[in-house]
């Protein structure tokens, strides 16, 4: 919670600072970075311990909660934001139209996401969601040289607001049915109502779920995804794809695991349909894309499908399914961050487009970048020796454990389709002779951005094979154990 305070305070300060003419953009970028770093250090201080409490109960009155679970998500969100700012450094410097306020909005958005995972009440969750979303709307449209930026921003604004209204309506229904909007208490009251008519609550919860499905771009709310991701500047797309999704899952998992647990069976069929449609449609969209960025956007829909498989398994294989979601979020976060980050680095110069064809023979000109990009693609495709494989292993194991072998097979089929569109890039990069003229503008590997991306690539491989050989160094087991710990903290009474 102190971490949240730090980031929020930083956002306000940065907003004030950016009005001063003497403060330059580099300063703002650095300020944002330092704020996030302090936040992360504060978070990590209490990482891996089991606890739960309501901070300042008189003041907040159970509207926010601090537990191992939220701290775990804080850590992911803050690392995501940090990585975004690191990989964005080069991009923001290359594109002059980013203004100082951008970083303030960025911090606001991060604080909104953190508040969301700490939210212990539907209304504070809504406020947090809107803080995060509103900042994102502006961040998407920030680079106004492009028409498509503005278009993307408006598309997301209009649709996102509509989805937000569902949330409010849903909360109202839930309040009508239960007489409270505080998490934990809702669950208790629902328990006492079991056996009676709870359709009001069910309708309300379904509406809230609709908002959630929209934000994570599941079928049938996926249409905005490709255009918005494509329209945003690359670091912002990365931020949305990896970090925002984490925050949304963070909140909705809490809601589903603790409060709507008694009525969760209601949605099983609905979810199965949604999952299959998401996987199918996402795969289809990903196959037909020519632009790399749009492919990554479409494939993020498929990854949402995998996450939802674990989500629906929670009912029968709670612990392993919930921790598999958390693990997969980390895995996807790393892979997507790396991919978006590297492409944004390559495409920092406006003249370089990023279609598949542009990458023909790329490996012969920039072998290291090509190797890193391959690692990210392999991880997204879930090939062994990458963290993406371990993530998929957990998700499918959880699904089979819960008795949803059929869904695991669907996931496997989607994985196998995804091999095509991820490997296509690797094939193009390696198997064609270089057409060197196109790649003159690509910057060489220098500075903090490539270093970060390289570290992500190493982390991906470590996450895939890391083990107990090297003691005291966090590997796969560490991630699973902490994920389980954070899951347990949800149920401390």
């Amino acid at each position, binding site marked *: 919670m102190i971490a949240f305070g730090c980031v929020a305070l930083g956002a306000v300060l940065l907003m004030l600072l950016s009005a001063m003419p003497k403060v330059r953009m580099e300063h703002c970028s650095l300020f944002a970075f330092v704020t996030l770093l302090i936040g992360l250090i504060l978070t990590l201080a209490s990482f891996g311990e089991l606890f739960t409490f309501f901070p300042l109960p008189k003041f907040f009155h159970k509207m926010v909660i601090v537990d191992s679970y939220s701290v775990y998500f804080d850590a992911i969100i803050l690392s995501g934001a940090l990585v975004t700012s690191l990989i964005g450094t080069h991009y923001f410097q290359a594109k002059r139209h980013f203004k100082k306020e951008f970083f303030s909005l960025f911090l606001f958005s991060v604080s909104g996401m953190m508040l969301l995972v700490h939210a212990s009440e539907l209304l504070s969750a809504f406020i947090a969601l809107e803080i995060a979303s509103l900042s994102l709307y502006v961040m998407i449209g920030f680079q106004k040289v492009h028409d498509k930026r503005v278009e993307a921003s408006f598309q997301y604004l209009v649709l996102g607001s509509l989805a937000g209204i569902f949330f409010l309506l849903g909360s109202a229904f839930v309040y009508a049915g239960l007489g409270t909007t505080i998490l934990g208490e809702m669950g208790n009251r629902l328990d006492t109502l079991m056996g009676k008519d709870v359709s009001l609550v069910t309708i309300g919860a379904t509406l809230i779920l609709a908002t959630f499905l929209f934000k994570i771009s599941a079928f049938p709310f996926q249409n905005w995804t490709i255009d918005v991701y494509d329209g945003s500047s690359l670091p912002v797309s990365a931020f949305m794809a990896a970090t925002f999704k984490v925050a949304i899952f963070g909140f909705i998992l809490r809601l589903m695991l603790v409060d709507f647990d008694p009525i969760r069976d209601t949605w099983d069929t609905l979810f199965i349909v949604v999952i299959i449609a998401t996987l199918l449609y996402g795969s289809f969209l990903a196959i037909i894309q020519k632009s790399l960025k749009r492919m990554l956007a479409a494939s993020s829909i498929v990854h949402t499908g995998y996450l939802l498989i674990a989500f629906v398994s929670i009912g029968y294989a709670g612990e392993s399914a919930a921790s598999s979601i958390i693990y997969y979020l980390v895995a996807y976060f790393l892979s997507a961050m790396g991919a978006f980050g590297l492409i944004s680095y390559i495409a920092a110069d406006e003249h370089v487009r990023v279609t598949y064809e542009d990458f023909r023979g790329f490996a012969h000109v920039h072998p290291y970048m090509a190797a890193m990009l391959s690692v990210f693609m392999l991880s997204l495709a879930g090939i062994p*020796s990458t963290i993406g494989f371990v993530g998929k292993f957990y998700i499918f194991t959880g699904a089979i454990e819960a008795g949803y072998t059929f869904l695991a097979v669907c996931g496997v089929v989607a994985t196998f389709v995804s091999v095509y569109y991820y490997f296509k890039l690797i094939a193009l990069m390696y198997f064609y002779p270089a057409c060197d003229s196109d790649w003159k503008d690509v910057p060489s590997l220098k500075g903090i951005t490539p270093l970060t991306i390289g570290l992500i690539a190493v982390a991906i491989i470590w996450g895939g094979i890391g083990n107990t050989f090297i003691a005291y160094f966090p590997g796969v*087991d560490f991630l699973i154990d902490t994920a389980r710990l954070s899951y347990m903290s949800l149920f401390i009474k």
Partner: protein
Amino acid sequence: MGVLSWIIFLPMAVAFVLLILPVGAKATRNGAFGVSLVIFALAFYVHEHFALSAQMQFYEQYDWIKSYGITYRVGVDGFSLIVLMLIATLLPSAYLLLWHNERSKSYWISMLFIQSGISGTLFSLDLFLFYFFWEAMLLPVFMIIGLFGSGNRVFSTLKITVYTIMGSLFMFVSILYLGVAHYYEFGAWSFALSDLVRISTLTPMNQTFLFAGFMIAFAIKIPLFPFHSWLLETYSTSPTGGVFLLSSIMAKLGVYALVRFTMPLFPDLFVAYARFFIGLGIFGLIYFGIAAIVQDNIKKMLAYSSASHLGLISAGVFSLNLQGLTGSAFLIVAHAIATGGLFLLVGVMQRHLGIRPLSALGGIAKRAPWFSVYFAVMLFCTVGIPGTNGFVAELLIVLGIFHYNPYLGILAALTVLVAASYMFWVFQKAILVQSGNDVSQMRDLSFHEIVGLFPLAFLIVAMGVYPDFFLAKITPTLQYYLDTILHVGGKV
């Protein structure tokens, strides 16, 4: 770290070092060759210290992912030992044959990675670990075909990748299902083969599905009819090294994995479906044999003839008696040596003459006597001429199938001869007869190549004349499979 871990990780480690160091293609090649010799020495050490029993030996076990009971555990028994010796012998030879062929560093690095992958697949006794190597092995193959292939290589690379990954993903689901079943039955996670075989809660329906999951993965890799459609394109676009690895090592690993994993995991189904798979194997033998006859390209022809033999090997595996099983193990070795040698020789020929149809060859024997002699030896082995190991192996398999079912045995006996006799025709047409085609570009084998092929030719004859020596260490293991795992008994 034990010997087996060294065999697995040494090539990989050397590959990483060579990748980072600024060395040229030649130094990398020499390094890779050196590694393959070291591996041969290690394999020989394993062979010498291998006790005559059916137990897993040189066993190593470390925790990997504790929360799911996933371990790194490796070991060898008689069956893996013979495959290990095969791989360890073949690879140095292959390096010598490819010596002048490939002038790129990444080629040799990929070869090293593949060597690690195949050893890992061979020794794994944990299904998660096995899957890990099984899939990881594919990536360097992907690189080798895509980077150094000819023709429509990018398409065929993607095709084989997607195809094999599809198969292995079904196996992946089966593995996970077994893991979960173990968890529900015993309350602890494990993916070790020795633990998973104890599962008793699976319904026949589930077993069939899981069995199918494994079988699809292996049938694609082997390839068994009807999962062969990647074969022709991949073999004809791959560079020599790629074809060599695919046909003489990876396909054999498919059969090996079939015996190693599906047999103990689903013994009842293995016995129940034996008739079906023998039929499928014999059908493949005939089908691919006919397909081979009509090819006008020697590489494509060898591809089909290789698939044809793999049909016979699979039929032998399912014959459920010691003759058939021993014959299959023996043919795995014999055929790997012969086909590997033939593909490498064809690679040499292609280097000199370019890619040519059969009708544009002829009269090579006169220009390249060493080449022709080696070619003949390998070819005799493939056809199964008495005195070669191919003969012993095919005889044993046919006997085994006959033992299982006389009619199928007669069918197998007839087709083995018919399906392979066209090889003589090819030999005559391409190598012996003067045809007026210009083959003046053809040169004889260089010293490297003569030395490289010698062990293969020697083994073909030695194993053919004195098979008992080579069978001694494998028989207890196979007997154990039949008695203890399949409960079908069977004597020599």
